[in-house]
């Protein structure tokens, strides 16, 4: 186990920069997820941590040691690939024991540690199988087993669940989290799925276009997004944003609708007003709106409504009977309003 420090790390392919000075501190034993849209440089950053990609600038330290020029095998890290990358001609046991064999461990030690890992991951009955004889979820577990037998300082995961179906993904998500709680190994986990990021991480790093947008605990990012990008990226359905300006103690949207301001009084210069769908309710008095689409999911109901010229989503816990075209009045929770500047930076 080790802390990881990334300091002003840059990466360019030829003249094309893809990572622009990223910094973060990952504590010993912490589970950090990197999220962001496709192509934002998550994999590149992870691969630089692994030593598979060289670093164009800045510094990476693992357990206090600068590893910029250290080969992958000397970094004492283990990586789980999206494609699993199991050795097709080796059995599950051989796949898991390969790294130990290369280290020159004796057969008994390898056997014991492979069994330990297999026990944790419920892989014992599969130890003599070849990868092609396994299901997707089992291959995924073998890939994790290959990582944990080595007792590395850091686990690196690059979208390990994206090849699994939705149901299995939820199961494996819990399994990985449980594994982390048990082993307490520092983990960096790349995903583009914000639910995965929210549910698994101690801290989330949101990236966009090769830069870090915000670093924080999942609920911190949810409650106080630093900018409109994070605000819309975290949370589903996404936060509703309105453009407009502050006038006469309320926020007037470009469509001419007046929205109530938060009670703390900050954010005079706000020109973007954000409220999450789950913080909008149907009330006696409030903003007039018209129902457009109703989507019941069972546990909650998503309602798309029209306010002035803008469309907005509500998430309701109660089962109301609503018809398209029906006029309603909605009210935002004044304690849960987000105000942003015209550049999208948080103000309140």
């Amino acid at each position: 186990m080790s802390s990881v420090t990334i300091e002003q790390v840059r990466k360019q392919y030829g003249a094309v920069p893809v990572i622009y000075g990223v910094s973060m501190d990952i504590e010993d034993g912490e589970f950090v997820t990197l999220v962001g849209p496709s192509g934002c440089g998550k994999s590149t950053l992870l691969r630089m941590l692994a030593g598979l990609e060289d670093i164009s600038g800045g510094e990476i330290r693992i357990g206090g040691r600068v590893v910029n020029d250290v080969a992958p095998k000397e970094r004492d890290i283990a990586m789980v690939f999206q494609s699993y990358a199991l050795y097709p001609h080796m059995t599950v046991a051989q796949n898991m024991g390969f790294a130990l064999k290369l280290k020159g461990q004796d057969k008994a030690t390898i056997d014991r540690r492979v069994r330990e890992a297999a026990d944790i991951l419920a892989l014992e009955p599969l130890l003599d199988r070849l990868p092609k004889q396994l299901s997707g979820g089992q291959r995924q577990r073998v890939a994790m087993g290959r990582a944990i037998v080595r007792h590395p300082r850091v686990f690196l995961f690059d979208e390990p669940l994206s090849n699994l179906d939705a149901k299995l993904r939820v199961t494996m998500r819990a399994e990985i989290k449980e594994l982390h709680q048990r082993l307490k190994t520092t983990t960096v986990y790349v995903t583009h799925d914000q639910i995965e990021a929210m549910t698994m991480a101690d801290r989330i790093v949101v990236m966009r276009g090769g830069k870090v947008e915000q670093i924080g605990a999942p609920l911190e990012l949810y409650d106080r997004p630093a900018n409109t990008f994070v605000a819309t990226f975290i949370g589903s359905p996404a936060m509703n944003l309105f453009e407009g300006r502050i006038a006469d103690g309320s926020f007037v949207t470009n469509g001419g609708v007046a929205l109530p301001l938060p009670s703390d009084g900050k954010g005079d210069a706000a020109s973007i007003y954000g409220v999450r769908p789950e913080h909008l309710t149907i009330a006696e008095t409030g903003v007039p709106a018209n129902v457009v689409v109703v989507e019941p999911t069972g546990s909650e109901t998503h309602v798309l409504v029209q306010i002035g010229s803008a469309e907005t989503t509500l998430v309701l816990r109660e089962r109301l009977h609503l018809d398209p075209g029906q006029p309603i009045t909605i009210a935002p929770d004044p304690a849960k309003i987000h105000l942003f500047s015209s550049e999208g930076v948080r103000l309140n």
Partner: protein
Amino acid sequence: MSDLAITAMQTELTRERSAIRSLRLVQTACILVIALVIVSPLLMLVVASLKDDRFQILADMGSFRAFWVSNPTLSNFWEVGNFSGELAFGRYLLNSLFILACTVGAGLVVNSMAGFVLAWGSLRGRALVLSLVIALYVIPQESIIMPLVIMVSRAGMTDSFAVQIVPWVASPLYIFLFYQFFAQLPKELFEAAEIDGASVFRIYRSIFLPLSLPALATVSILMGIESWNQYLWPTLVTQTDYARPIAVAIATFFGQDSIYWDRAMAASVLMMLPILALYLAFQRWFVSSFVGSAVKG
């Protein structure tokens, strides 16, 4: 459903089945014709080798009697077996086998290593080397054979086994074949092994080579056939019979004044057998490959 409808469905089914059956028939016929075209010369050779009279063999060519022998005899094989040339016939066979084994053995190692480095190494100018290798492939062997003869004779290598092996070990075609095979394996396999702590040589030996059985089999067969059939090169670089291969020995049946068709046929059959065995041994790997399971499911 009415009886009528059921009957109609049954008729439909029967029609479909008979359509499938006639398609099969056409397929089988096609395969038979192709097989006949490929097999008939071999059959002719085997049949001729069982005929006693070398003038009869010539006379039978060009008619269906070429495929028929009324009283088969092994006497030709017998004579070939007791061949009274410089050396015994079996010795030439052994020479050929030895040259083949060394060429193929060394060739698999050298060409696969070169292909691996070109596909995965961090060598500078890999792309340039690769295009040079491909460029070399278009140069026919025959066109460089005279300079090659001069080179080996200056090096004092003539009339040996080495001279028949060394020049043919590394080959642009096989390097390229291995390169292509290795290059299509997923990058994550290399990286996973790298993180597991394997050196580049170890990755080659423990991961990529075991996965390349289909390529190894293909190259073994092609190289084996090439080595076995070498004729021009050994005639040029061997002066005595000591290291001569069977292909050269058989040529002595085509004497200056008369051609011993009967024995030439028998010798050809004998020469064919090992290469046929090699093919049968490796052909199941030609197509089979379990690389697909490396990635995803």
